[in-house]
């Protein structure tokens, strides 16, 4: 059963300056689902639209970002909530209870003039039935303890904590109410590898214990290999391949994914790693055909005329490439 669904989602950055409209198609016709009890990885290089996709999935759409087509649906207690059409009040109701969010490790997401316990209160007090300050602090302290943080953290100010501790605090904030889906945007970026491992282990432990779903956006393929069950590979605003982590790493089908996996270093292997030549296309120009065509070693004439559709090629494996299936992408309004 799916908890979060994106249906032919299109989210563009639309800006206007001196009457000239500029449209960046950051998320272009993306369909995916987050299932129950899984860790879904969203991978791709910088600028491929993965953060924009996550913002849209979370319902944080603010100009210049505009949803021009498709929709995002949450399944909350068996009922569907259309996030793209929901009122701010409805969204506030599902946030943190149904979906929550762990921001990038490098950001200053904690109010610098507020003690951690007060931040906890700000985030959850209005969502729980009558709870005294003391009870709330006790609850938060127990939760922090289970995440490996001393309860004294609650009395500290953000500047007194290390980067790793701050990231654990944000994970604690996002998991306190036991939401069904947790979105994590580059949670390990800007942390050193030791702290990274701690954060990754923590996230996977929480997922195992709570049986909730985790959506992990990162460009770090190592993190994906360690943590995720399924991976969605994005390229230039589109999903080009989707499948179980084992399949993606062992038998990638899209030429881009093949380059991506092929570029990963392997211990003991001294062979030179080939990377895809060239750069991704500019997303503010009109694009037809496959987005990867200019860098693809197996490009065919057909690839320039139409974009390939994302089709199922095996159990739990979808690829958008004419080498695999001749089906063309249907342009939905």
């Amino acid at each position, binding site marked *: 059963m799916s908890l979060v669904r994106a249906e032919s989602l299109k989210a563009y950055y639309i800006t206007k300056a001196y009457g000239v409209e500029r449209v960046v198609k950051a998320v272009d016709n993306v369909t995916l689902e987050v299932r129950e009890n899984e860790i879904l990885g969203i991978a791709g290089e910088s600028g491929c639209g993965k953060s924009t996709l996550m913002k849209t999935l979370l319902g944080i759409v603010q100009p210049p970002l505009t949803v021009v087509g498709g929709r995002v649906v949450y399944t909350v207690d068996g009922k569907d909530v259309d996030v793209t059409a929901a009122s701010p009040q409805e969204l506030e109701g599902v946030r943190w209870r149904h979906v929550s969010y762990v921001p990038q490790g490098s950001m200053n997401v*904690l109010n*610098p003039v507020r003690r951690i316990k007060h931040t906890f209160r700000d*985030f959850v007090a209005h969502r729980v039935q009558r709870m005294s300050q003391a009870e709330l602090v006790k609850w938060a302290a127990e939760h922090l303890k289970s995440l490996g943080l001393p309860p004294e953290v609650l009395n500290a100010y953000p500047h007194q904590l290390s980067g790793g501790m701050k990231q654990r605090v944000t994970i604690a904030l996002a998991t306190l109410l036991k939401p069904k889906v947790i979105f994590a945007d580059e949670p390990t970026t800007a942390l050193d590898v030791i702290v990274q491992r701690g954060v990754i282990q923590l996230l996977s432990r929480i997922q195992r214990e709570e049986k909730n779903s985790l959506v992990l956006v990162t460009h770090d393929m190592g993190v994906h290999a360690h943590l995720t069950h399924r991976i969605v590979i994005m390229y230039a605003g589109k999903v080009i391949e989707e499948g179980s982590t084992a399949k993606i790493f062992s038998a990638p089908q899209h030429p881009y994914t093949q380059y991506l996996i092929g570029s990963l270093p392997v211990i003991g292997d001294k062979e030179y790693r080939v990377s895809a030549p060239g750069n991704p296309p500019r997303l503010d120009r009109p694009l037809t055909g496959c987005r990867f065509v200019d860098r693809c070693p197996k490009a065919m004439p057909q690839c320039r005329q139409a974009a390939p559709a994302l089709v199922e090629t095996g159990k739990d494996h979808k690829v958008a490439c004419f080498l695999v299936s001749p089906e063309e992408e249907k342009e939905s309004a």
Partner: protein
Amino acid sequence: MHLLKRYIIPRLIQWLVVIFVGVTVAFIVPRLSPLDPVQNTLNRMAVYGLMYPEAVESLRATLEELYGLKGTVFEQYIAFWKRLLTGDFGPSLSVFPTPVIQLILQALPWTIGLLVTSTITAWILGIVIGTLAGVYSESRFSKVLETLVMCISPIPYYIMALTLVLLFAYLIPIFPLAGGAAIGLRPSFSWTFISSVLKHGFLPAFSLVIISMGWYFLSQKALTSTLVASDFVTYARIAAVPRRTILYRYLIRNSLLPQATDLALGLGSVFGGALITEVVFSYPGIGQVLNTAIFQGDFNLMMGIIILSVVGIATGALIIDLLYPLLDPRVRYH
């Protein structure tokens, strides 16, 4: 103890140094001027009739003694500090021999009442409206307000003050034209006196509020729009933290840090008086006294006001420095 040694004492020393330098400059500057107050007085007296040279010489000596201009500059400087530390600013030269301190003390309550009230009112209004305009920067209300402030702020203060006087005291006489209270009223805690003070003080206070509020409004709006886009406000919004909490605890609380400094310096400068306001509205405060002192070449009075103003601003900065750790936890630990 640690806090005292590491935080408070260095700031007290800094405060003393600032005052020392300020007072020294206030001492030196008039002595660099080509005007000689003793000679000025002698000239004034000479107009009334001829004097014997011996009488002129003895008068000069007496005046030099009185004005604190006896001996070398260094001796004068020492004597100046001695008098200052006992609270003696010397006699006023224009209303001789009334002590300067007495003139200042007479005018001070008026100025403090007027400027403290208007500064605090402008500060609070500017912050509240500025924050709202920063949060709802896309709303029509906010845009209209900003345009209005942009139009009013650049009007030179004296023109606006004069316009207000013309409009509301002369053409439509709702408010009195001049003074701090009705003539003949003795200061007391009676309703007649208080209402008279309020009525006289309204226009000058209003003009000051409008001018300084514009600045607080614009700076607060700029601060808020930066904060609105900051990581921690964005995150709190995503987490659907109640709007009131975000407004008070996240936006206003964080923008108060620079604004508190502004307020403290604004309150510190109260002791310098509001020269133009008090002249235009004929308000009996420090600014009015300073105006008289400048036109009459009353050095002692000018120096008295300058020193008071130096002490005021330095003390304002000291107080905010001492309070800052309470406002910003990041300053508490070094």
